[in-house]
């Protein structure tokens, strides 16, 4: 039975875990074991979600947050891949920049929010500023690592075929680094969602993050948790789309490159 569930395309075991947690949570609230003003039962959150869907606000707020996520991620993708290709192909450049990268990489993105606010105010531009920097690193490191790992014999092939610099990037670096770029890009996409929500909670008065704080201040924990639930669902959806893309495009998986 368990083997059949494990073999299924739908993660039934994972869904069962979520279901059991929700049931325990519901029972704890209903029995009074958990009795807090700000922790409603899952059933109340579900009702909040239904009310939210009916109000029509949800679609607008999802669209707002996802627009920022995608734009921020795309900017990071372009910068990250370009910088990763440069750093991966130049040992000298790497030597000059790697210390700076290692210094900047662990800095929490949200620490840049006050700077973003001063530069761009309470706006989507500020939100993008907060998203891009932390989202950049997994892509840059993935690309750089992929290029560094290009086998020496491929360089020899390039020399033999007298490929130009652009052709080397297009025909050798990018295909070789594609799986690690994709891994970085996939991690970054979920990270972009987290940062967008945080930036909206603190600085950009729109989207899902702002809605979470708004409903919290409006003493509506049911609706607030409904928004949190939607953010979680979006994370799952983003990851599912990325995984599906990875499995359908051969070049994005290491096996695909080997073929």
């Amino acid at each position, binding site marked *: 039975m368990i083997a059949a569930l494990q073999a299924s395309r739908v993660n039934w075991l994972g869904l069962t875990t979520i279901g059991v947690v929700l049931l325990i949570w519901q029972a704890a609230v209903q029995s009074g074991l958990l009795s807090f003003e700000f922790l409603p039962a899952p059933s109340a959150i579900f009702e909040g979600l239904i009310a939210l869907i009916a109000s029509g606000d949800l679609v607008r707020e999802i669209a707002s947050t996802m627009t920022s996520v995608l734009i921020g991620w795309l900017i990071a993708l372009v910068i990250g891949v370009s910088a990763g290709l440069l750093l991966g192909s130049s040992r000298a450049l790497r030597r000059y920049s790697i210390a700076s990268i290692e210094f900047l990489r662990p800095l929490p993105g949200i620490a840049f929010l006050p700077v973003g606010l001063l530069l761009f105010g*309470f706006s989507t531009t500020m939100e993008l500023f907060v998203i891009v920097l932390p989202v950049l690193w997994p892509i840059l490191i993935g690309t750089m690592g992929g290029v560094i790992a290009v086998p020496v014999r491929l360089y020899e092939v390039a020399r033999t075929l007298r490929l130009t610099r652009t052709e080397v990037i297009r025909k050798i670096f990018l295909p070789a680094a594609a799986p690690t770029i994709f891994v970085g890009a996939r991690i970054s996409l979920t990270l972009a969602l987290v940062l967008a929500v945080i930036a909206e909670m603190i600085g950009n008065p729109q989207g899902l993050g702002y809605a979470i704080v708004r409903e919290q201040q*409006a003493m509506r924990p049911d609706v607030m948790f409904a928004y949190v639930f939607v953010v979680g669902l979006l994370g799952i959806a983003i990851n599912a789309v990325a995984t599906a893309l990875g499995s359908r495009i051969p070049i994005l998986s290491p096996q695909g490159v080997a073929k």
Partner: protein
Amino acid sequence: MRSLGLSLAAAACFFQLVSYSDAQAPQQVRAAYVPAVTWLPVRVAKDKGIFQKHGLDVSLTLIQNLSLLPGAVGKQFDFAASTGPDLLKAVASGLDVAAVAGEVFETKDNMTTQIVVRGDSPIKTLADLKGKIVGTPSLGAIIHVSLLHWLKKEGIDTSTIRAVEVPFPAMADQLKAGRIDAAEMIDPFSRQMIAAGGRSLGDPVLSVGDDVLFPFWISERSWAEKNPAILKAWIMSLEEAKAFIDANPEEARVVLSDYTKLPPAVVREIPFPNYRFRITAKDLAVWVDVLKSLGQLSADLGNRKLVVEVE
């Protein structure tokens, strides 16, 4: 010659008309406020066409975190909600901002902030807070600065309390769970906690004095000095909005419900604070003294103009 005269006269009429229509065109103003009853007059003034009547075309932005606003004043907003500690710290750090209009004055007759403990708490007086954990919306918030000032005034070492940041709506649960021993609260959250059995130790802001300037409006100082007419129209609009609130409390509560999204029962019960919009340098001077006494003012403000007064 005659036709030239006629042309000049026609041109003069045209420019007069243009300048007249310019004078009549409403002045565009951008303002940021917070979804709380404190800022009801600005919403009433907008929704009821009062700003328009005073020649202002106001665009309002709801912001949740008031302490971040001084940095956006002059760039993104012409008017922004602020408090004494936030404004003074912004000025001390070099921002060209000043108070331009009042909003709420805290008085004994109309208290909006409270230090709340559980009904069964052993904390009976301020002195009992020694060694305890206090929940605050923000370590730099006016309510926390006021509590520190109150403790100091009562001769209690402020370093003996530990403050942790907790959002207002989560304070009641944190208090109930025993994660914090006391909560710095504002209406309507304090009202709900007290109704549910909590106990108030008092209003920390009143330790600064009675009739104290609480939240108010700030602008870029240089802009404010160049635009006294706009400042005057802003204050007159808010005063008219207050008169509307006094005369039509039920209608005002509909506006309140619309922008705060608070539950209807809360909106019905919440009292209106003591709104007042004309301020002087003296009103802000008390906060300079408070911050100085707590060692929280990093720079000497010298002769910096902190309030742009309106006649």
